């Protein structure tokens, strides 16, 4: 027991010494903007912009592209090295991949039984994009702004433009389902939900922005950068990455299934056509 206490004291002392050294060697003047400016920029993205082939873009767009590249590289590696070795009785990694693909395919099939192939693909892509994009803020990748300041790349969907793009695209997917599944009836059903793109966009934006603001606040003050990020950074980010992926995909699947459901007349006509063909 004495040895254990001694080791514990050494460990705690080492931590305290390191903390003190970090605080004493820190640069209080390292911030190029106040907390108010940082928060405002986190919401509006109007100050810090990044040059992308001569075009000044939001940092979130660079984040989105980085996420896309990472995902596509991951998918390419799987396609080349793992898919050809798939077995009838799956191993752990194959089972993991099948679970993810199967989860979104089943979500599409369950919510829209009459038309779900394209929906499954969209849900899979959107789910993967939102999940990895939300976790992206944990990596803390840096970029240089057009003003020459380094900034940490945020989660793509914490930018309102990305959230609007995602919300509107989901609405367009729902509309396409309505047109292909139920024709004018489906279009009418989709247009009735005219608030859907706004609610979807701002739900994503609000959820991701709140996480970003809390993270920004915590990391702004160095004294809060110990232990606390484990909770607010990792656990909360993981949780709301899961929740936001699930919410957007589930809502899209629900509305898609609702608007693409053929009317009674169309069902009767289709069954007649099938009967005639048979």
């Amino acid at each position, binding site marked *: 027991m004495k040895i254990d206490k001694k080791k514990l004291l050494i460990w705690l002392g080492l931590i305290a010494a390191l903390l003190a050294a970090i605080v004493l060697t820190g640069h209080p003047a390292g911030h190029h903007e106040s907390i108010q400016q940082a928060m405002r920029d986190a919401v*509006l*993205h109007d100050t810090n912009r990044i040059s992308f082939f001569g075009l000044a873009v*939001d940092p979130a767009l660079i984040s989105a592209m980085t996420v*896309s590249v990472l995902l*596509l590289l991951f998918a390419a590696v799987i396609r080349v090295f793992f898919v050809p070795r798939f077995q009838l009785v799956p191993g752990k990694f194959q089972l993991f991949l099948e679970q993810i693909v199967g989860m979104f395919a089943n979500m599409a099939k369950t919510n829209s039984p009459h038309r779900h192939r394209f929906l499954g693909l969209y849900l899979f892509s*959107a789910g993967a994009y939102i999940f990895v994009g939300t976790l992206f803020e944990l990596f803390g990748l840096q970029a240089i702004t057009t003003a020459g300041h380094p900034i940490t790349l945020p989660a793509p969907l914490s930018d309102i433009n990305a959230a609007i*793009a995602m919300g509107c695209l989901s609405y367009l997917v729902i509309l396409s389902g309505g047109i292909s599944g139920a024709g004018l009836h489906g279009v009418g059903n989709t247009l009735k939900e005219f608030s859907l793109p706004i609610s979807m966009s701002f739900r994503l934006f609000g959820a991701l922005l709140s996480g970003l603001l809390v993270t920004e606040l915590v990391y702004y003050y160095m004294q809060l950068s110990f232990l606390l990020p484990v909770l607010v950074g990792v656990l909360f980010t993981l949780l709301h990455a899961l929740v936001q992926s699930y919410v957007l995909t589930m809502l899209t699947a629900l509305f898609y299934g609702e608007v693409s459901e053929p009317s009674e007349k169309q069902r009767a006509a289709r069954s007649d056509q099938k009967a005639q063909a048979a």
Partner: protein
Amino acid sequence: MPLNIDFQQILLHLLNFVILAGGLYFLLYRPVKSFMDKREAYYQSLDREAREKSAQAEQMRADIQARLDALDEEIRQKKNEAQQDLRRSIQAQLDESHRQAEQILADAQAAAQTEHDKMLLSVRQELAGLAAETAEKMLHQAEGDLYDQFLNMAEGGTAHEQP
């Protein structure tokens, strides 16, 4: 625009997502889904084959059972026929035996009768012979006696005439 909404940025995000969705579809979603569908189809075909084989086996079992039942019926009929044939054969043999026995009995009776007649005839002949022999013997004896008697009488007659 309020909240720094920028249509160009929105379109760039859309472009980024469309590229991502297409890439994920060709690289990950379609191959994995295709593999899962093929495996499902494979196991469904196995299941279907197993069901068909099970149905065939059931049909075969029913056929065999029907054939066994038919064979049992046939065996029962054959057994009945065999028993009837056996009964007829036994009856025929019995009849033949009776007939042969009667024939033997009749032959025996005829032979016995013939023998009896022969014996009777022989006995008669023998008796006739014996009778003739006896008669002859008696005759010879009688002749002797008669001769003696004659002689005696002859001797006695002379005596009677002299008185």
